[in-house]
């Protein structure tokens, strides 16, 4: 069982326009995937289908060889943060972490001790501030979402543009976290970003999407950044 995620003939369209069309894609355990593409390339739609939030028009997404639409086992080891819609915004961050931890049978003390490792990442702006999540800035909401996905000890982690709203220091910390996850803990990570520097630095495999198709699938090396920059500059 080498393939963590396998996508077969996946298609989705809205009003006759194809948004995602992927004949085949396999993602191995421990791989770290960077998903790049311009706005409207279909990245978020792909994420949503991998998380069974959208019903594909055709094809299937297999997680550990099981179709995500028919089973719920993938929820045990897959965590994600796509947007604020994933957060329960009327809870305080602590309550939210405790709730999420409770889903994986962790008690509050366990969660609290696990949250200690995020002290730097949170930069003193999340915990014990006495704010509801809805009153946090977008960047801080992103931090809550990412931390909540991490405390669930995932085997697969999906983040949609996690670098977009956070400050430079946190970006660097997040990069280190993601690198460590895939290299040392063998966690499969799929991260999308508009910042080519970030993804080439963090991910060992880059998928380039355009109009719903994966048009490039490259193992990251020293030339990858140049190659990608060239592609995007040609487009313009």
């Amino acid at each position, binding site marked *: 069982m080498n393939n963590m995620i396998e996508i077969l003939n996946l298609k989705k369209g809205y009003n006759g326009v194809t948004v995602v069309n992927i004949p085949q894609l396999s993602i191995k355990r421990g791989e770290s995937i960077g998903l790049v593409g311009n706005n409207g390339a279909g990245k978020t739609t792909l994420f949503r289908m991998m998380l*069974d*939030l959208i*019903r594909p028009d055709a094809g299937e997404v297999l997680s550990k060889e099981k179709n995500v639409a028919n089973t719920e086992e993938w*929820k045990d080891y897959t965590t994600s943060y796509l947007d604020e*819609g*994933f957060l329960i915004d*009327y809870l305080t961050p602590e*309550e939210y972490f405790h709730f999420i931890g409770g889903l994986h049978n962790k008690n509050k003390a366990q969660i609290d001790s696990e949250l200690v490792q995020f002290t730097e990442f949170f930069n003193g702006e999340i915990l014990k501030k006495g704010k509801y999540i809805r009153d946090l800035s977008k960047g801080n909401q992103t931090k809550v979402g990412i931390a909540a996905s991490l405390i669930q000890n995932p085997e697969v982690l999906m983040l949609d543009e996690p670098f977009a709203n956070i400050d430079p220091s946190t970006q660097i910390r997040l990069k280190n976290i993601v690198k460590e996850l895939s290299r040392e803990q063998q966690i499969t990570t799929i991260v999308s970003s508009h910042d080519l520097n970030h993804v080439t630095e963090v991910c060992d495999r880059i998928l380039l999407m355009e109009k719903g198709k994966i048009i490039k699938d490259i193992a990251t090396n020293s030339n990858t950044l140049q190659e990608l920059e060239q592609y995007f500059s040609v487009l313009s």
Partner: protein
Amino acid sequence: MTLTFLIHQSKAFWRSKNTGKSIAMRIVMGILILYLLLNVLVVAFFIDRILEKTYPNQEIIPSFNSLLMYYFLIDLLMRFQMQELPTLAVRPYLHLRINKNQLINYLSLTSLGTAFNLSPLLLTLPFLIKVILPEHGPATFSAYILAITGMTLTNHFFSLWLKRKVNLNAMWMLLFFGTLILLVSLDFYFNLFSISALSAQIFKSLINTPIYCLIFLLLAGIIYLINYRYLKNNLYLEELHSADNSHKSSTEIPFLGKFGMAGDLAANELKLILRNKRPRSVTMMSLFFMFYGLIFYNRPDFSVYPIIFCGMFMTGIFIINYGQFMFSWQSAHFDGILVSKIKAKDFFRAKFLLFTMFSTISFLLTIPYVYFGWRVLAIHFIMLIWNLGVNTLLVLFFANRNFRRIDLSKGSAFNWEGVGASQWILSLPLLLGPFIIFLPFNLLDYPEAGIVTIGLIGLLFIVTRAYWVNKLIEQFQEKRYTIAEGFRNE
């Protein structure tokens, strides 16, 4: 500039994603308001007769005068409860080269368009024409109109100002209600002074010296300026945004801990209700329904029908009021629920837990109705069983067919967001269900058997709940994509 704002707002309305639905809703609402105003007009037309009947020993005009101030007090209370603050999203304009005065003028001007400002004149105009005009002449007549307009505007801007104050600091609300309670208790309990006498005095002097009506207009002008200056000094994002920055504590509900995952979910939903404006006001309104029985039971001979009806409403008001928007409450984080390790079964069990809790509390609150006979209490209990057995399932059945997003931070009075066909269809079986069962028994003259049957059917559905919940879960799995997609559309 005001015109530009108006155009922008009309564009915002017509181009919003929900335009089709909201137009239909507005038409329904318009008809409703028109109907209410029509009622007001009918009452207004016969106000002299009504006054004659109620105060047979008094002349009409003094009794009319003495009631005016009460009316405006009640008007103020109603405004405070229901009137919405004008909602131009001023945010995109604040940083542009637009005078603050223009923004404020627009906010003040558009706020005037509510039925609250129409009803005082509608209510009094027929009386003024029928009675005041022939008796005291056109000068007094126009003085009255100006005075009433002045009072209306005073109330209008005062309530806007107060609401904005309350948004920033809840102490103002306590202060406001405290003053009101003090006034009313001084009037009714201690008889230290009388609002009606004061009111009669004021308007009597208006009849004698019509020019006094300018005082009312002056008052309105002063309040307008206060409101204007207040807005001008507070037209900043953080202050318009009504978020209060007090420390939020993490509340825990130990009682729910016993129910495992479903308990945790129910605890979350309880927080949803307590911490968000709309569900909170829906639940508060449910409390008012506890007085529903008083309307019907006060009559000397009431039949079984109203008890069934009131019993169902009072014990099931939470299921009906809150349940009709099931899943929509969670629309903002529905994606999060779907990808989390939450079993659909626990998700549904949490709803039942919540329903059972609130309905039981409602039932306990209706126990004082035993004053109207043990029969009332027994039927209430049977209707509780009916609610828990049948109406919970009914509400959740329709929840699987409800794809409308709800913004939790808006008020609930006259808020039609999230209302769709499913709410209307839902109300039919909800309202008629028990009567369809009861009617044939009653016609055959076995009302007791009818009530027992309602209870037994309720019990049957409670016992077989697991089966129905599995059916609901199957449907939920089928519909979840559509539900999630609907909730993503803001």
